[in-house]
């Protein structure tokens, strides 16, 4: 074994090891503490877990590429809410009324187009003004959320279309519709980042922007494309979830940006850009969902769940730091 292989393996595989630990812990603890008769690792429970991972997971794929690129997007929760409103409300608009179920694809396209456009706006501002993405999307988070409240005040926006619900609740090869979307998005983004020029350049820009510019890479368009992708994915996440639920509150999607970033960081993507893996983000998404589900399985309430996830996030990053320091001549700070 070459030197460094073990630590690389630990770093890459850490998130999966963590998932295995969670499964073992909750299976055993569930036997003693759970009120339910079903085992934690019951097949239906696991399938449900995948389905429930989808809303955060789909956005997390977008967040991974934005973060690899050296940026961040805090406005995804607000884009998610706006897209949900567009999806549900547009189906009730008189011009689409005559189309019946034909309004569904139009509503989907509208919602996705709005999400992509809002992402493009973020990207354009970051590109053209040079203002840090953190600030730009912080402003966008507040602004887009403002639009959500302007649309319908404090009232929820509702429209239930049974064809849509049936589609969203369908299972194909055992997996739910939402799960399929999550898997397809994961595969598509993996290809984008590992096999295409755009992906390669995004890594280079995130790692060393100046060197990328000196290699003739145009940084702005790449950043803008990534913001469009994450906007699109935030909308897709909303489309998948609200097709089933049929009702959106103006607060929906709040704190999503933080859950998404937590999953991405757990998966090992660097906040400073240049490094990160789509597959590990998928692991990070599953790990968080397992934790939420597992803790409630053994009877913990929501507040406890949040506390535990927060602690684990810090513990994991601390461990990661220790693994990274080892062997390097880093100064003790």
């Amino acid at each position, binding site marked *: 074994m070459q*030197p460094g292989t073990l630590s690389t393996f630990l770093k890459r595989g850490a998130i999966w090891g963590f998932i295995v630990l969670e499964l073992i812990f909750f299976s055993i603890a569930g036997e003693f503490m759970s009120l339910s008769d079903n085992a934690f690792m019951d097949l239906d429970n696991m399938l449900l877990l995948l389905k429930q991972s989808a809303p955060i997971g789909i956005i997390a794929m977008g967040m991974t590429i934005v973060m690899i690129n050296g940026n961040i997007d805090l406005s995804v929760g607000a884009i998610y809410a706006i897209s949900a409103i567009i999806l549900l409300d547009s189906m009730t608009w008189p011009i689409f009324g005559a189309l019946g179920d034909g309004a569904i694809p139009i509503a989907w396209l509208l919602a996705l187009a709005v999400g992509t456009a809002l992402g493009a706006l973020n990207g354009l501002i970051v590109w053209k003004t040079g203002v840090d993405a953190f600030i730009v999307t912080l402003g966008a988070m507040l602004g887009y959320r403002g639009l959500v409240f302007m649309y319908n005040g404090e009232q929820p926006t509702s429209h239930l279309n049974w064809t849509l619900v049936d589609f969203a609740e369908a299972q194909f090869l055992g997996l739910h519709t939402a799960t399929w979307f999550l898997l397809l998005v994961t595969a598509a983004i993996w290809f984008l980042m590992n*096999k*295409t*020029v755009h*992906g*390669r*350049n995004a*890594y*280079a820009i995130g*790692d*060393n922007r*100046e*060197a*990328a*510019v*000196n*290699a*003739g*890479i*145009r940084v702005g368009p790449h950043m803008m494309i990534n913001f469009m992708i994450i906007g699109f994915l935030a909308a897709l996440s909303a489309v998948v979830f609200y097709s089933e639920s049929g009702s959106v509150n103006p607060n929906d999607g709040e704190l999503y940006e933080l859950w998404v970033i937590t999953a991405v960081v757990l998966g090992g993507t660097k906040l400073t850009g*240049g*490094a990160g893996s789509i597959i590990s983000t998928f692991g990070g998404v599953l790990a968080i969902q397992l934790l939420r589900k597992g803790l409630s399985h053994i009877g913990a309430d929501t507040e406890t769940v949040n506390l535990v996830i927060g602690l684990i996030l810090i513990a994991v990053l601390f461990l990661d730091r220790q693994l990274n320091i080892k062997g390097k*001549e880093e*100064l*003790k700070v």
Partner: protein
Amino acid sequence: MTDQQPALRLEGIVKTFPGVRALDNVSFAVMPGEVHALMGENGAGKSTSMKVLGGIYQPDEGTIYVGEKPTVMHSPLDAKAKGIVFIHQELSLAEELSVAENIYLGELPKKRFGLVDWDTLYARTDKILEKLKVSFNAKTRVGDLSIANQQMVEIARALTVDAKAVFFDEPTASLTDAEKVVLFEVIADLQKQGVGIVYISHRMEEIFKITDRISVLRDGQYRGTLNTRETNEEEVTQLMIGRKLDLSRSALTHEVGDVALEVRGLSCGDLYRDVDFEVRRGEVLGFYGLVGAGRTEIAETLFGLRDPSAGKILMDGQEVRIHSPADAIARGISLVPEDRKGQGLVLGMNCRDNMTLPQVDDLKAGPFVAEGAEVSIFDQYRDKLDIRTPGWKQTVGNLSGGNQQKIVIGKWLSMHPSVLIVDEPTRGIDVGSKSEIHNLLRELASQGYAVIVISSEMPEVLHVADRIVAMFNGRVMRTFTSEEVTEDNLIQAISGLSGDGQAA
């Protein structure tokens, strides 16, 4: 030397890391009041020695003596308290704080309730600054100071303790010649006060100008100490690399082709004015001058990183406009930048991806990166440039400076440029790899590339360039052919003293 006690002495220091014997029985002594050069190639053990002395590493064997006393350095703070101080190449200052706060960082004098005793702080700082004869005062914000003055703050910090030995690690790396003179005065002052100075540098001129003795390390072993007055560059170099180094003037051995790039009346604000030159295929054109003479800025203009305010650039006789590196690359101009790690390489990426970075878009098959084509390009240039790496998957950050530089050069050669601009080709590269890079540049010219080499090292330009453009203060003072140039007339030209020639 007098027969007094050394200020600091290392005896039989051994330090091993898994798989590496970084220091193997290293011994040397610094006398009070002497300037002692510590030399060696990168990886020879200079940094490790410093870290052992600074309390960052503990030696496995051997003893450190401060004066007569065997001493253990427990931590950097402990080393400082014992009078061993380091002026590092990379400055570590808090730019938003004042000079006084920086000097006493972590040791601010306090009044009751933990409040800072500003009066004492400023009084003490002024006393130290007086010794250094600097132009700024205790309350100046460090971020407002020049690099040279920031370095003075670092030195002032060293003087807060009763220093026995002060280590200077490549202190002149970012200083102008005038600033160097001031630094050398400060060093001479310290010397008079009986402080032992350890001076670490790759620059032979400086070593021979200011040091009394030279100790050489190679492969973690102590190779001997020479009296500066009784030795010469050749002997020192031979001791450092274990063989002879060829630095003779290279003669033009091939035909020079037609003009590849021509610059007429090029100006860029105050940075440089009315610059004229041309470079032909098959020749190496050297640019020599002091830091700030405008050489790098000209390169940046040619590469599209700066827009000129006047003048024109012609390639093969046609005027071209270059607004971005992408434009420059498309026209066949490539730049190997001065700061390899900051501007030239994506350190976290592997060798192959770095090498194909500018052309990955041209290599694609459909929407996908053509990895096979990339590997064959990498293999081709690895063999051509003799890049030593276990394979293309190796992260570039793990390679030595010389091999990293070859990756950057290979990156551009694989694009078949017509003009290759190399800014400070051997900065931070050890002596052995230097001559390899020099030979490579000569060879590229003989293959028909037009090569521009910018350098601050006179032996380097004299060695590699066929013609030399001497710059002073943003102007071309004179262009020398290799027959005309001598060290004397070159120095005169770059100091603005040259009366002859075509001074603009």
